[in-house]
Every structure is written in C-alpha cells, then in structure tokens.
C-alpha cells in the first residue's frame, strides 16, 4: 500500500494539502455523472467552485495515429468508436472528406438516405443526452422513456446496417447497401409515434419546478465568450448565435430541406435544454421530408476504382472482379491534397482535416470533436457555481469522452 502512495504523480498531491479555506475535490474519473472517464479537479470554497480543471485522456486510444496505418475504407470503422452516440455522423464526415479529395459525385438516393439516417441518429443522440442529464439531476423515469425511443432508432439502424452502435453504414462513394425492404414503413411508424413521446418528455421535464430551478441561470456563458471558446452546436445556439452548418455550410443537400434553427439567448443550462428539445422537432421534420424524397435509384457512385462492385457483377464481369480485388487488396489512391470538412453533428461542429500524399493511406487525419472544444469551456461556466451545478452543466454540454480523447 505504501508503495502505491509514493507513486502518485505530482498533480494529484493537491488533495493532501491541509485544509484552510479552500479544498480540492477530485471528481471522477469513475463518477457516474461525468459521462465517461472525465476527471475534474475542483477547488472548493465551502460548496462554491473556485476553480475547475478538467483532466482528460483516460480513454485515449491513439485513433489519429491508427488512421495513418489503415487504408481509407478501413478508417471508417475506427470513426464509429469516437462519438459512440452519433456514429453515423462520424462516418459521414470521414467519407465526405475522402469524397472531396476524390471529387466524387454521390447519387441522389444515397444523399437522401444519408440525411435520413443522420437525423434519426441525431434524435437517438439527443435521447441519450436527455435521459442521462435528467438522471444526473435525479429524474430517473425520464431515462427509461428516452431509452425506449432510442431503442426503436437503434433497431432501425440495425436493420439498415447490421450494427447498432457501430454501423459503418456510409462508405466512400455512397452506402454500404441499399435500405432493406419495409424500412420506410418502419420509419414512418416511428415518426407517427414520436411526437407523442416528445409530449411526454415535455410533461415530465419542462414543466417540472425542480428541473427549472436546477437549470435556469446555471452555467451561463454569453455570446462573445461562447464564440471565443469555440462552442458550436446547441451550446452556441443556446447563447444566442443562430449558427447551424446544415444551413450555413450546407452538405448532402441540406439547403433544400425546410427546417428552422432554434435559438435561445440566455446561455444557461435551460437554454441549451430548450434548444435541443426544439431540435428534436426539427429533426423530425427533416426525416419526414427525406422520406418523401426517397425515390428508387443507385446508392453508389459511378466510380469502379473506388466503390466495391455488386456481387452479381463480379460473377459476370471480369473487370468487376479485378476492381474488387484491387480495392480490397491494395486500396485506391487518393489525389494529393488536404481538406477540412465540417458537418453539424448532434453535439456541434464535427470537422475532419484529411491530408493525402497520393497513396492508399491517409497522411494525416485529425478530428475536431465538438465535445472536446465544448468541454474546454466548462471552467468558465462552472466557476462561481455550486458543486451540484457542475453536474448539471456537464449534462447540458452533452459530452462524449470517446470523441474527446480519441
């Protein structure tokens, strides 16, 4: 036991200092309300937070290094593991960066399915956020209602891709495969049931006095500070900036969909909560429109050297067989260059910087995770608040440690 104490690194010794007016509390990494393995060094004066220092890296798995050793198409499965609540968004940004380098034209049906699946995934991601952040504040039953809805979306994603948490459904040049038979009917069924569930959430949470007093006026960040700290997504829109990359840097044809950008001006946990709740409605609207646009057609780009051929073609055509062999065995060369591709993921701007040196493996892949940047602003939001409010603020930021540590 004494050996272990000697080996504690310097940064942990703060807790051993004698207590006068301030004390240091190490919150996490195995704390249920830090949403993963986040550690916070909290300097407390009584119950007030004087200083909060987030300590991350407990889940670092060297993904950015790994990308450099994998072919472009192999990298897609790594992206699933980053933001594990929004894997389709990660897939999308990665394949779109590669498509930008390859200058591929994606067929209409594939684009519509991408929008459809991403919005379903956004609803699922927000469900986990609502369930867990309500759980942090003591509302147990919301969690079960939310996960019931999420389960339905998980089943839809499983039907399309075969995986629940790790779909890898989007591929460079299109989709893994077309939607299964009866998928549209199942989505329609979900769309019909969902507004009722939304009403349930509003009744359970929004009108709840405890919920209101735990979130209103807590963790305030104003507009200038929010931009200065690089906040994006619902956190930025909660501070009064109507920025949504689906509208302002459109991709996948989002500019043709009709949806609103919910904005709240208070910048507190309540504002971020309201923005996400209204976003659920907007996502619902987009899914409806995408369903209407779903017309039969190809789901893969016409690029035989990049996109895997159909199994049927491989039995009939020699060149399809050759292309299949080359793509699987050697990969495809991507033109030299560098791109930065941002999308509006469920948590904010998810960007990928991809640099190619002309070979079948990327030279550098860097992910700009929205959780990483949003968490960096936690100290400004939580300093001067109570310890219990730190839990509320972390919940309202909607962080995923898999994406922060990568």
């Amino acid at each position, binding site marked *: 036991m004494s050996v272990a104490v000697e080996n504690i690194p310097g940064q942990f010794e703060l807790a051993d200092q004698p207590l006068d007016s301030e004390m240091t509390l190490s919150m996490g990494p195995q704390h249920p309300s830090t949403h993963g393995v986040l550690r916070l060094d909290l300097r407390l004066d009584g119950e007030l937070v004087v200083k909060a220092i987030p300590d991350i*890296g407990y889940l670092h798995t060297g993904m950015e290094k790994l990308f450099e050793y994998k072919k472009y198409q192999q990298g897609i499965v790594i992206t699933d593991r980053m933001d594990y609540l929004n894997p389709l968004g990660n897939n999308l940004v990665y394949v779109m960066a590669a498509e930008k380098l390859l200058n591929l034209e994606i067929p209409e049906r594939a684009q519509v399915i991408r929008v459809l699946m991403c919005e379903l995934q956004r609803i699922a991601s927000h469900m986990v956020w609502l369930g867990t952040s309500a759980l942090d504040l003591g509302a147990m039953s919301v969690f079960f209602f939310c996960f019931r809805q999420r389960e339905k979306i998980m089943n839809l994603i499983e039907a399309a891709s075969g995986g629940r948490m790790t779909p890898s459904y989007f591929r460079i040049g299109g989709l893994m495969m077309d939607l299964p038979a009866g998928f549209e009917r199942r989505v329609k069924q979900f769309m019909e049931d969902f507004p009722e569930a939304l009403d349930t959430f509003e009744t359970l949470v929004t009108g709840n006095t405890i919920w209101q007093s735990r979130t209103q006026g807590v963790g305030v960040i104003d507009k200038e500070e929010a931009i*200065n700290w*690089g906040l994006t997504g619902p956190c930025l829109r909660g501070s009064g900036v109507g920025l949504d990359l689906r509208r302002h840097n459109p991709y996948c044809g989002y500019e043709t969909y009709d949806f609103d950008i919910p904005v709240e001006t208070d910048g507190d946990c309540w504002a971020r909560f309201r923005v996400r709740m209204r976003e659920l409605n907007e996502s619902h609207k987009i899914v409806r429109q995408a369903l209407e646009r779903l017309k039969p057609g190809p789901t893969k780009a016409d690029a035989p050297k990049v996109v895997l051929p159909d199994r049927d073609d491989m039995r009939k055509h020699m060149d399809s067989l050759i292309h299949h062999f080359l793509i699987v065995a050697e990969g495809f060369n991507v033109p030299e260059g*560098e791109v*930065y591709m941002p999308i509006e993921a469920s948590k904010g701007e998810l960007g990928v910087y991809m640099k190619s040196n002309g070979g079948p493996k990327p030279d550098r892949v860097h992910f*700009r995770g929205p959780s990483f940047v949003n968490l960096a602003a936690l100290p400004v939001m939580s300093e001067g608040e109570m310890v219990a409010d730190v839990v509320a603020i972390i919940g309202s930021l909607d962080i995923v440690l898999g994406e922060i540590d990568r």
Partner: protein
Amino acid sequence: MTEKLHEFVGKLKEENAAWVSDVKEAFGEVTINVPAEWVVDVCWALKTQHGFDMLADLCGADRGPEEDPRFEVNYHLFSTEHYNRLRLKVLLSEDKPNVPTLTTIWKTADWHERETYDLFGVIFDGHPDLRRILLPSDFDGHALRKDYPLRGYEPYSMN
C-alpha cells in the same frame, strides 16, 4: 465562393506583404502560408477587421523526419458573420518547432495547442499552461510524429 476569400488575402497582403508567403487554392479551400513570427498579427487582423471570429480547429501535421520544414500547424478559421472558412498554415523546422500562442486571441486555442504539443512536440511560446493533455505527463516522445512507431517503444505502464 473563393473570390471572397481571395479578397481577404489581397487585403492582408496590402497591409503587410510579409504576412503572406504563399497562397494556394485546392478543393474549394484557400490556404495561406504565414511565417511563424507573424501568425498572431495575421489572426488578430482577420479577427478584428475581416470577421473571422472563430477558431474552428487547430491541428499539427508531420511531413516526415527527412523533410525540412518538417512540421505544419494548420489553423482553420471560421466566421459566424459571413460563414467563410480560411486555412492558415505555419511551417516549422525540426530544430526550432516554436510558434507564438494564439490563446491571447482565442481562448479555444488553449486545448488545441496543448494537444498539438502533446502529439507533435510543437512548442507554443507564451502558452499559459503547456502540458500534455491526452497522454500521461510522464510519457516519452510525441506519438503522432512519423518516426514514432505505431505500437510505441515499450508497453506503457502507470508505474
């Protein structure tokens, strides 16, 4: 869309010709190479005069141990007013991988710079708290450098 970006670059060049050493356009994105000593001035001018008020991303890249300059630091600037994006690139040699910090302009640069220092060993002069962020503080080497092996030199243990 890129005409507008070239306009900004032209204005920057007008202000000080030393600020911009090279301009490249590829895949609909404009990249300007900035000498390391000028990067703070250029970012300040872009933020205050041209509306690039957000630092969307900052990342390093290693070109390989035999290249000179070896390291790149890429700044992805974004504007919440006119929604344009601009990439600044600073090239650094292996002997002197130093670049001034941007934490004085954007607070979000703090963690990005710590990450780049952690994984590439790029030193951000003037950074208030330049520690490792993802890897443990006693980690040896910089993991994303090209000459660092994928599996590391030896199994890492907390002891």
